[in-house]
């Protein structure tokens, strides 16, 4: 660890180096985590490409992207909420509710209106979270935990805990649509990521998400409309969850009230694995993408080598603990 801290300090003193050498000297322990994880992913994928004939089939690689897509979209929204200083435990429930609403409406009113209503459900849930956190000033853990319970409860009562099926054939067509093997779900994933990346990196809103996450009172004094930024952020989280929930319906062909129950924690784990600490003010969309790819490749490897899938949470947990410990130690050394 000493060498790590020295690297950080060297970089702050000299300030100027660029390129590969600079890349080897992360400015913070969060960056260090991200770079180590990136190396793990790249080395792992290259090793698998060489070692496993099954892994390197285009079909398997496309499959990995497809499997990364749903949690990936959720993690993209989660990334925003974590940078803003919070997180959202209700995204899984929101995804299920949006999927069920879309499925239900589509039976009578068609696919398009179904999708629109599903997205609206996500928007409303997200704005609800945002108001609870920004205006009522409830801590994000309690606010979104409560929201998750409320949504799940309502959903199970409304659906009698039964899946919504059969659905119109358009759902299946949507699920099977692809551009030279790249599925609809993956195309949406890539589009959503590009959009979120631009929003976070280049716009005033994106800059203010960081500002609020770093020092909300200071941002407010500087003229940032903190409530508005937070509500927008949770709205984005709700809508991304809804997109993932609706896409899941297109794959599974049913609207399931118990869908996405693991997504909230998976998405948070992905963001942390990708090198964004909880607490706010730091991180980037690359964390969400990196973390989700790591988790998906891990699952894929376990399947390919017929290793028990129960090792997935074990390895994920170790990775999260290692990431958080590195950042925590880095912060202590800095002080």
């Amino acid at each position: 660890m000493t060498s790590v801290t020295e690297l950080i300090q060297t970089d702050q003193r000299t300030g100027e180096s660029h390129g590969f050498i600079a890349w080897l000297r992360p400015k913070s322990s969060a960056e260090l985590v991200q770079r180590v994880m990136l190396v793990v992913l790249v080395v792992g994928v290259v090793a698998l490409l060489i070692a496993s004939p099954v892994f390197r089939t285009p079909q398997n690689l496309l499959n990995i992207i497809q499997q990364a897509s749903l949690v990936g979209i959720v993690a993209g929204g989660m990334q925003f909420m974590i940078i803003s200083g919070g997180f959202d435990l209700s995204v899984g429930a929101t995804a299920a509710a949006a999927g069920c609403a879309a499925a239900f409406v589509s039976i009578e009113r068609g696919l398009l209106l179904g999708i629109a209503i599903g997205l609206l459900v996500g928007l409303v849930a997200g704005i609800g979270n945002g108001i609870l956190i920004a205006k009522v000033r409830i801590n994000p853990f309690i606010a979104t935990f409560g929201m998750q319970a409320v949504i799940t409860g309502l959903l199970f009562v409304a659906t009698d805990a039964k899946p919504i099926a059969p659905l119109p054939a358009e759902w299946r067509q949507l699920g099977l649509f692809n551009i030279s093997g790249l599925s609809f779900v993956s195309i949406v994933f890539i589009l959503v990521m590009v959009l979120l990346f631009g929003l976070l990196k280049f716009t005033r809103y994106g800059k203010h998400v960081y500002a609020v996450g770093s020092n909300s009172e200071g941002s407010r004094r500087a003229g940032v409309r903190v409530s508005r930024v937070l509500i927008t952020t949770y709205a984005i989280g709700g809508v991304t969850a809804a997109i993932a929930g609706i896409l899941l319906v297109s794959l599974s062909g049913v609207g399931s009230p118990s869908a996405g129950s693991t997504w909230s924690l998976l998405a948070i784990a992905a963001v942390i694995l990708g090198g964004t600490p909880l607490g706010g003010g730091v991180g980037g969309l690359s964390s969400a993408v990196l973390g989700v790819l790591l988790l998906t490749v891990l699952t894929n490897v376990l399947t390919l080598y017929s290793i028990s899938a129960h090792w997935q949470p074990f390895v994920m947990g170790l990775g999260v603990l290692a990431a958080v410990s590195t950042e925590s130690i880095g912060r202590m050394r800095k002080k």
Partner: protein
Amino acid sequence: MNSQSPTPIIEARNITKRYGGVHALLNANLYVNPGECVGIMGDNGAGKSTMVKILSGAQPATSGSIHFDGVQYDSFGSPVEARSIGVETVYQDLSLADDLDVTSNLFMGREEYLVKLGDLSILNRAKMVKRTEELLGEIGVNVPKPGSIVGGLSGGQRQGIAIARAAGWGSKFIIMDEPTAALGLQETEHVHEIIRGLKRRGIAVMIVSHNMDQVMQLCDRVYVFRRGVIVGDVRVAETTPEEIIAMITGAKQLSA
């Protein structure tokens, strides 16, 4: 200072602030001239913070008025509104976003855009970086580069950035709350140099301070607060630390 009295940039008249039946401030009058540095001293609970909150727009006065740059206000609606007319506040906690870089902090809430589209406005990073370098040069703050993360800088540099943020947008009056409370000797001197620079540029400065040396070095005049009343308005050149302390503790009363 000139012998003929210039027009004050800011003048608070008969400011009273009550919380329930208790007054935090009673008929307080003060003014600050352009290029003048005024110190605010007094014991805890004497009304200094209340006056600062009213002048910075954080709280309205119960009664009284503020005259700023020739316009009369009952109160500045909010810190943002106060800022928009040229009143800036440097808070004791500096209110910086430690995870963000120097440029982002300087331009927080006043970003420059390539395309203006409300929340979706595209930031003009290059323009802001250029202006950051100019501004820090003008104010005399040394930081490694505009892209440095603020949390990694020294206390003096951080204070300098907070002051540059306050001084950079044509502000005419800057309130500073304990500007060097957390700093070492050298850094304090650096900040003092920055404040003298502001005075030379004609900016009116108000410093809330417990540090007698600082007030005697930097300020032209001192207002002494005691139990919600301004008990002294003295020229630094014509007084002594002992006299000010006597006013703070109530051992001596001097009419304003």
